């Protein structure tokens, strides 16, 4: 029960959190980029 697919439960939990962290950082970066674009268009629209 403690092993699955050749990896220990601890290894799998660490891997899970690494993947989650990468996903969150990627999403954060994409969101920041889109908000920046939005601001840019609003600023150029006002001009």
């Amino acid at each position, binding site marked *: 029960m403690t092993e699955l697919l050749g990896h220990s439960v601890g290894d799998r939990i660490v891997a899970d959190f690494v993947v*989650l962290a990468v996903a969150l950082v990627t999403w954060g970066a994409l969101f920041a980029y889109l908000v920046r674009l939005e601001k840019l268009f609003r600023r150029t629209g006002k001009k």
Partner: protein
Amino acid sequence: MRWWQGFLFVWMTATLVAGFVYAPLAKKLHEYTRIIYFHIPAAWVSVVAFTVAGFEAARYLAKRDPVADLRSAGAARLGLLFCALATVTGMLFAKAMWGEYWNWDPRQVTIFFLLLIYGAYLTLRAAVEDPERRARVSAVYALIALVTVPFLMFVLPRLSAFTLHPEPIVNRAGKLEMHPRMFGVFLSSTGAFTVLFFWMLSLDVRAARAREARERPAEGAGKGEEIGLDRAARA
């Protein structure tokens, strides 16, 4: 930042976290269950995007509205991007589950055809210089391409007797066999991806309009200069 953008940020973040800490793992898929919350929403968004591209193409042909053309092109471009994401995430899953990135599974083949069809759309758009002709030809192509989407995404993969791909969300028996928590996170992810797509599309259209507005005066100035040169030459 607008309120719905802040809401989308919280929504997507909560969905990502829920996919890892709230939703249980599927029996046969183990840790790879999480691909469900990325791969299927990406494929779904590509279908939505191609439908929007077709709808806006029809609107362009009916009203000759240049914004409809820009929306159609933007939707096709983003649809291709999400389709590529679905293909890549699917390949990663295939490597983990079946040992190879590419297995010529019916779903892999049909999504590959979709990539080719919409890749050709962008090539066609880039090849025609006259804006009106480009818009008209692209709109006709986008409408024809849309006809293939339901067949390639939903019909053909289900007709095949042999597939390595796990059962779709609604399986062949027409039943939904997914843990309620998993289904909740899946629906949430699909919704967040869809809102993200429409936001990206709106930005894409605004970028295209800004590009056109910047190029138009330059073209006019270029023509003016040419006329000036011609007059100077004649004089």
